[in-house]
């Protein structure tokens, strides 16, 4: 049994070393930070939708009522979001599959923007594409 496990370990270690520069990974977003389209829609007017995609994508189309807040123009766009936010609101941040780390990064920066940290900031599961499917 031990020999079998050791034999399986050799190619596994070899592969891990050989492919060390070729594997892309990132820590997953915790389930408590994610929200589905249906859940977010159920919040109705109590939710603020934040579009973290580049300006051009937002101009092309966006969730009705969403505010644009991306890291390309964070400083400039943040006051617009802050002018409509209030502590009891839930915040739903989305991006597209192409730039889907953006939602997570924007959500993180929003949490840190207030003292104490902003609560109820969520990342939309499946991003813009998931919303389009359920439109």
């Amino acid at each position: 049994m031990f020999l079998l496990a050791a034999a399986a370990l050799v190619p596994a270690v070899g592969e891990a070393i050989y492919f060390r520069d070729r594997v892309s990974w990132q820590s997953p977003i915790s389930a408590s930070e994610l929200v589905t389209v249906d859940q977010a829609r159920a919040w109705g007017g109590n939710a603020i939708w934040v579009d973290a995609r580049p300006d051009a994508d937002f101009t092309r189309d966006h969730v009705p009522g969403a505010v644009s807040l991306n890291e390309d123009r964070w400083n400039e766009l943040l006051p617009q979001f802050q002018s409509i936010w209030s502590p009891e609101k839930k915040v739903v941040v989305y991006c597209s599959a192409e730039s889907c780390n953006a939602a997570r990064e924007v959500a993180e920066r929003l949490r840190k923007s207030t003292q104490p940290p902003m609560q109820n900031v969520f990342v939309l599961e499946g991003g813009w594409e998931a919303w389009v499917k359920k439109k």
Partner: protein
Amino acid sequence: MKNRIFVFTLSILLPLVARAELKWEQTQVELHPGVADKEAVGHFKYQNTGETVVHFKSVHSSCGCTTAQTQKDQVMPADKGEITATFKIGDRTGTQVKTVTVETDELAHATTVLTLKAVLPELMQIQPTLVYWNTGETPQPKTIVVKPSKDFPVKELKVSSPSAEFSTKVARDIASGEFKVEVTPKETTHPSATALTIQPDGSAKIFYATARVMPAPATPATH
């Protein structure tokens, strides 16, 4: 039967003998752009060390903020080239890691992930960027701390509010180099808001913070 075994063996061995192989000089690049830089460009150099042509099938980046370009669609044996990854810095700060996935028709390594790490300077840290009061709350001052980076010393900070409903006072702590911006609403009897502009001396860059008097949260009716 012998012929079949021969053909089968040949089909396995031939691609290994006459294989195409893109050797990358490096698959990870770390960049340290300056304060005024608008983008960071990483160069990923390669050479085809195999004996057949390598074709690029696709090159795509992990983020809309990064574009990647190949110089050519195919790489002849012994040919060299590079993929350039251009990362748009925008208002991003801290360490940013973006990846570019390259797909080729190589049999052994069809997919290669190139990693671009950019360590971005942060001119100033502003904490928090939003201060707020509820209507009816005592209009006591609240403080925004502005901490310039060590590489970007700031002697003076200009803070202004377009709304007369809020006043600001800036104090500098010489020892730490930090600034404390005290924001006070004139009154909290009604909702109001202002976008404060924060501008360090010697820089055209403007930062923002928001001050608001918000409607008090609705309390559920009790019977």
